[in-house]
């Protein structure tokens, strides 16, 4: 299937927008309104730039742009394909909500160093879009590292010793994984002479000895520690000390999504479906992430801190994405890819609700939240929508991705994987329903009066909850995520839509 | 092995500068006194100069000064063809190297004077101990002690 390529500077501009914005944010650090204005302007411009590329992608074309030839045969280049734009749309769209939410959150709590905060936020967004549009592993690595560095000040934002040590932990995990990723890239480059992604995997890797291939795969997956696979997940709950919008950024918009995005890029676009199947790597990886799915859900049940519970939930959900990719069936991959935006919308809703609880009710622990729904009904309704989505129940979108994943596993006739998916759904319910129950049905300790979070926070979380429902009800509307995913899947499987 | 024995008897000059070099090198590293280190450095360098100079020697050669006074070009050519001169190049090199060595020694000695002013001692151990600030007043103490010995 020949794929038409279009040369355009738009992807580079989309990456650059928030870089420019970050400079402006620094320059206007003394004027909060203008500073935050820039954030908004950049968020909208970025989103429109990303969206403007969508029609071409939907026509099945690919947009490329080579920035510079950094080293001979090693360019910094962008290539927008369906999978890339899927992630880019998710990130840039959610950035608008997070920006609005950040303003409410940061101003209500009168946080310090807000200029640094918005600056780093903008850089992190650039990096996320950069990762989405990377045409090769080296460009991806560049933005991957930039993302790590720019989010470190966000994680350590409060500058307490706890925050700093969590930041260190965050950095240690991600830097070690970055080194591992670099090593893998070096190996790929050494053996194939290129690092450019290809729909059928990078040619030349299949000639590698089996052991080398396995080691390479392992170092790659260690390199994707941002995806929080189980032995390498500890940074994610630790990073919960950050302000809540940052958690939302980490979990829904940029960081962990960049991790799973990279993992899928590696699995499908570097190794390729064929090689995954021939080498048997897909099955090992599927079992490996299954362990994460189950264990993380169990860990989540034991957390009383709402944000930590959500963090473990993320660990578990991310592995769904990778599981879908390694199922290497059409349905499985669809489910996995689709889970990136879907999980993004649902998880950001949940986090924004958690943040609203912190800001308005000053409550972080689930055991303190008796009857909180009477005080904050809208917030808790939104939370319920997100939680239902996570469990995989209509109306929110989660059930669609789970359905695809189940279809994929069923196609393979693998009872273990089907079992894992079902058990994890039960476990998800087991750690989300108590929150809903506590909030709605338990008697509050003292009388609560109606008091919602400020509008800048309430509006975005309501909107994301509504969108979560919309993508659940009309998943196959033209130009929606499912459309994009279908093209991406068609690209990698080589089949028609 | 026979090569080495041959050298021992035939190449006495070689042994002289090897020995000198080792003495100088040892003094530079092992001696604690800064002046002795500088002396060691000088011995080391002198040994190298001797090595260069002995390279220049040619059996039956004379100093590389043309033997004709001011008699004119014809005489010069005659002299050149008849007399064996030693190799002039190593002399030139070593003249330069000597100057370099002297300059280095001068700088080293100037540094030593400064160090003595600062720490009141030229013993490496004492300076080191002082720098680690085990005894802040050590410098003054050491100075008095040394003056007493003199």
């Amino acid at each position, binding site marked *: 299937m020949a794929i038409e390529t279009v040369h355009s500077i738009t992807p580079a501009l989309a990456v650059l927008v928030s870089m420019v914005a970050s400079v402006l944010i620094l320059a206007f650090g003394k004027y909060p309104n203008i500073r935050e204005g820039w954030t908004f302007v950049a968020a909208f411009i970025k989103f429109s730039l990303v969206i403007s590329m969508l029609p071409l992608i939907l026509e099945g074309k690919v947009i490329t742009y080579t920035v510079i030839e950094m080293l001979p045969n090693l360019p910094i280049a962008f290539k927008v394909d369906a999978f890339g734009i899927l992630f880019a749309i998710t990130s840039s769209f959610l950035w608008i909500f997070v920006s609005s939410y950040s303003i409410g959150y940061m101003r209500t709590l009168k946080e310090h160093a807000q200029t640094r905060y918005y600056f780093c936020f903008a850089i992190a967004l650039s990096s996320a879009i950069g990762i989405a549009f990377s045409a090769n592993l080296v460009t991806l690595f560049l933005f991957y590292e930039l993302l790590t560095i720019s989010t470190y000040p966000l994680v350590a934002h409060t500058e307490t010793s706890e925050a700093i040590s969590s930041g260190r932990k965050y950095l240690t995990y991600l830097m070690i994984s970055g080194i591992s990723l670099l090593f893998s890239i070096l190996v790929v480059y050494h053996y194939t002479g290129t690092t450019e992604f290809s729909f059928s995997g990078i040619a030349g890797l299949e000639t590698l000895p089996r052991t080398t291939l396995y080691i390479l795969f392992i170092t790659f997956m260690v390199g994707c520690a941002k995806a929080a696979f189980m032995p390498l997940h500890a940074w994610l709950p630790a990073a919960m000390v950050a302000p809540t919008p940052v958690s939302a950024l980490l979990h829904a918009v940029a960081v962990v999504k960049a991790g799973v995005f990279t993992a899928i890029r590696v699995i499908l676009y570097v190794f390729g479906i064929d090689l995954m199947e021939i080498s048997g790597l897909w099955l090992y990886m599927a079992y490996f992430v299954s362990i994460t799915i189950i264990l993380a859900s169990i860990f989540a049940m034991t957390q009383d801190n709402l944000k930590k519970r959500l963090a473990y939930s993320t660990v578990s959900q991310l592995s769904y994405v990778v599981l879908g990719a390694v199922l290497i069936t059409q349905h499985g991959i669809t489910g996995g890819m689709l889970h990136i935006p879907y999980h993004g919308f649902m998880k950001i809703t949940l986090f924004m609700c958690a943040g609203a609880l912190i800001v308005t009710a000053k409550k972080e622990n689930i055991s303190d939240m008796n009857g909180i729904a009477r005080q904050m009904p809208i917030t808790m309704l939104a939370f319920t929508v997100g939680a239902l989505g996570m469990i995989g129940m209509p109306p929110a979108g989660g059930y669609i991705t789970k359905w695809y994943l189940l279809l994929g596993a069923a196609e393979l006739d693998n009872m273990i994987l089907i079992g894992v998916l079902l058990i994890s759904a039960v476990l998800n319910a087991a750690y989300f329903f108590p929150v809903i129950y506590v909030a709605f049905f338990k008697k509050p300790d003292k009388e609560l009066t109606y008091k919602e979070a400020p509008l800048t926070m309430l509006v975005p979380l309501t909107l994301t909850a509504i969108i979560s429902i919309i993508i659940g009800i009309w998943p196959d509307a033209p130009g929606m995520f499912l459309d994009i995913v279908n093209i991406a899947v068609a690209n990698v499987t080589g089949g028609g839509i | 092995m026979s090569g080495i024995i041959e050298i021992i008897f035939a190449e006495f000059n070689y042994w002289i500068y090897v020995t000198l070099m080792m003495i100088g*090198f040892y003094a530079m590293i*092992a001696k604690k006194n800064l002046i002795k280190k500088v002396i060691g450095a000088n011995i080391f360098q002198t040994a190298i100069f001797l090595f260069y100079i002995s390279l220049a020697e040619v059996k039956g050669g004379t100093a590389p000064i043309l033997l004709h006074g001011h008699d004119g070009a014809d005489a010069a050519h005659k002299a050149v063809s008849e007399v064996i001169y030693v190799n*002039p190049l190593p002399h030139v090199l070593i003249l330069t190297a000597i100057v370099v060595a002297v300059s280095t020694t001068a*700088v080293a000695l100037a540094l030593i004077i400064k160090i003595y002013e600062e720490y009141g001692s030229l013993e490496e151990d004492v300076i080191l101990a002082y720098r680690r600030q085990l005894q802040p007043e050590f410098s003054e103490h050491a100075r008095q002690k040394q003056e007493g010995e003199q």
Partner: protein
Amino acid sequence: MKIIALIAVILAGGMLIYAGQDLPAFGDPESPAYQHPIIEHYITHAETESGVGNIVTALLANYRGYDTLGEVTVIFTAGMTVILLLRRREI
């Protein structure tokens, strides 16, 4: 420190003795250094090209005059350093 010094000295000395076996013999007119064509050139042309009978002078000031410039610089530097270190007045 003494042990390190001894080891270093023995290593260096060993290297010197090892190399000594292949060095040209003392006063050997066949040595490569003496056989190199430049020596012939210096001896025959020094006076005509430099105007001095002393070949060492000719070399020092003419053929390798640039080394001598370097040598002068070394002296200047050393002098500067000594002044810098020992002079108490502002310089």
